[in-house]
């Protein structure tokens, strides 16, 4: 354990006192220069105020990365559906900043936490965070809420970090595309959570494919085979139906989009990237639920999908994903072309091409999550907005389209998927009674 062990109660206490006093000074200084209504977000004292909505593990990671990405970024406001999620997120962020101060012999990192009492919970936390004077917002709630949160964020002229997937259904994807378009007209930066796009080794491999390293690409295979998600939570007596589903959001497809779109979408994004974001003609596939125990808390999501995508130029892309405990795992991609085959296994650093022009990647691995925020904040500072809007929407739809095909058992065209009016959340989210969604059965579920 570190000598700066954050769980040491004595240290923690002295640090808390220290942080509270410096935060108060910082907040006073900032309040002296109100700046609501700005578009670019650069104020005189050079701070960029960061807000987060969705204070779970991913939100916490993103907050820390945002604070590390820019000398002037400060954590300004926090929101979550559940009040008890906020303090742990703040605590881990504070610890990370104090660790940096300890490592570097500084006292500046911990001054970046300037949340004060701007901590909001409930379904409308997004509005309170947006109205608190933030410049940049981190959207890390379950995906069901992303389209609406992004819409409000862009309306409020905020730069955005938008986790993947960006929606759970086609109406959500269309909303995100529109928000992304508006963000562009307002010169706002919009960074997606498709982190592999910011990983140097994968980037180098994609570049090799795009520049003819395997000749004409004709076949893609991607996998995201793992052993499952976080353990589901058993229902507590005091939880309403809605709260029960929200606390097990991964397992309910209206909230998570199912694992093919929530998690395996990272591998499907490799497919999209290799295709230079060309959209497919159609998709079909199979899937089901074989190993998930039949419990209320394991919701209605499936545990495996196998999908085939067909592109206009004859390229076929095969994707397989599964959540099967006690089985081998695999998260890799294979790209076959007229002049060679590319193997990409990012988790063990294998990036090779065999064929006419043998190739081996030599880029160095980087922290892709940090890089995303480095790029985002740099784009804000340089007034050169980054906008991942189109590809993040299309990749999300690519996975949703596969889910539609497997759930329904039908062949689904890109146009059908994009124009689908099936919404997974017709009933607005509020605490109270809520019917649990049923497990989709091909041939009897309307999914397109």
């Amino acid at each position, binding site marked *: *354990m*570190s*000598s700066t062990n954050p769980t040491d109660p004595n240290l923690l206490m002295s640090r808390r006192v220290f942080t509270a006093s410096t935060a108060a000074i910082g907040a006073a200084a900032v309040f002296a220069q109100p700046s609501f209504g700005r578009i670019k977000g650069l104020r005189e004292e050079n701070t960029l105020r960061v807000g987060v909505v969705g204070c*779970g*593990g*991913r939100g*916490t*990671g993103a907050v*820390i990365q945002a604070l590390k990405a820019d000398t002037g970024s400060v954590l300004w406001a926090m929101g979550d559906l559940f009040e008890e999620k906020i303090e742990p997120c703040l605590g*881990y*962020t504070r610890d*990370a900043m104090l660790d940096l101060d300890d490592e570097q012999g500084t006292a500046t990192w911990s001054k970046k936490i300037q949340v004060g009492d701007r901590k909001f919970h409930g379904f409308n936390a997004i509005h309170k965070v947006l109205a608190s004077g933030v410049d940049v917002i981190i959207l890390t709630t379950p995906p069901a809420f992303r389209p609406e949160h992004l819409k409000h964020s862009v309306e409020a002229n905020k730069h955005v970090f938008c986790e993947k997937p960006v929606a759970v259904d086609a109406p959500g994807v269309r909303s995100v595309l529109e928000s992304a378009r508006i963000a562009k007209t307002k010169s706002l930066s919009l960074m997606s959570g498709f*982190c592999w796009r910011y990983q140097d080794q994968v980037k180098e491999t994609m570049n090799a494919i795009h520049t003819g390293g395997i000749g004409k690409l004709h076949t893609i295979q991607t996998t995201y*085979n*793992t*052993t*499952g*998600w*976080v*353990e589901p939570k058993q229902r507590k007596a005091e939880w309403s139906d809605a709260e029960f589903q929200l606390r097990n959001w991964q397992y309910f497809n209206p909230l998570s989009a199912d694992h093919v779109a929530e998690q395996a979408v990272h591998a499907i994004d490799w497919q999209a990237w290799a295709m230079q974001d060309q959209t497919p003609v159609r998709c079909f596939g199979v899937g089901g639920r074989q190993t998930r*125990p039949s*419990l209320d808390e394991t919701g209605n999501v499936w545990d495996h999908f196998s999908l085939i995508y067909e592109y206009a130029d004859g390229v076929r892309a095969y994707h397989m994903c599964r959540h099967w*405990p*006690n*089985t*081998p*795992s*695999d*998260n*890799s991609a294979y790209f076959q072309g007229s002049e060679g085959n590319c193997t990409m*296994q990012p*988790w*063990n*650093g*294998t990036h090779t091409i065999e064929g006419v022009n043998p190739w081996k990647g030599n880029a160095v*691995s980087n*922290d*892709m*999550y940090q890089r995303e925020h480095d790029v985002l904040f740099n784009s804000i500072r340089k007034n050169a907005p980054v906008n991942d809007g189109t590809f993040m929407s299309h990749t999300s739809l690519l996975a949703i389209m596969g889910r539609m095909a497997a759930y329904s058992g039908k062949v689904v065209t890109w146009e059908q998927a994009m124009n689908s009016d099936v919404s997974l959340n017709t009933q607005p989210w509020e605490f109270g009674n809520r019917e649990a969604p049923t497990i989709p059965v091909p041939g009897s579920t309307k999914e397109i």
Partner: protein
Amino acid sequence: MTESFSLVLCPESTIETESGLVDVPALYVLSTEVTWDLYDIYVYKLDEPEAGSDADAISRPSKPYVPPDRGFGHEGYPAIGMTFLAAKGFCDWLSIKSGLEIRLPSRAEWTYLATGGEDGDFCCGTNEDSLDLVGWHSDNSEHSTHPVGLLAANNFGLFDMHGNTAEWVSSDTRKPIAFGGGYRDSANDCAGTSFQKQVSSWNQSDPQIPKSQWWLADCSWVGFRFVIEADGIDQQLLEGLQNVINESD
């Protein structure tokens, strides 16, 4: 399923270390690195009759966020990428299940076991130029771990002490350390005295904060094996250990 494994009895000794002479007790030692076949029993509660029940309130790993075996292979391959805490947790779990005191080796014990009680840094009279006989290292591994026990065992009957995976040991260092080098290390760094200290890059790709206590997202080269002190051991419990594993189906 039946997961066979074997323990070998290694004699007690007094060995010279940087901090002086250290007594190593007689030890029963797992002849190979812990395989996924064994480790999965612990992770996926395959020893519990019903899903979800965990009568002993044993602390078990979360399901891994990343593909834990990295696509190298599963059955017969060494388990990799678990944290020190998880390796220790496995030993604690198996101790509860078996009634034996199962633990990770100390640094001195590990080096002694690796060299098979011989002088020098490598076993069986090998050196960094002839390590291919006993160990998977960067020049012969083809950037992957290999099934345990494919190469020659050392004098004690222990496989893959040099290379394949570095192995967690118990120590009083601030960060956990792993001995013996792995498939990606040079032969020279797979000596019995070679060790590496965990650094933050071993878990860089875990997107969640706090990061997993159980899995290291970017560490594909560390595993472990366990030891049991032989002095006064209950032979019935020792024989029962095999059954503990075999009954896990």
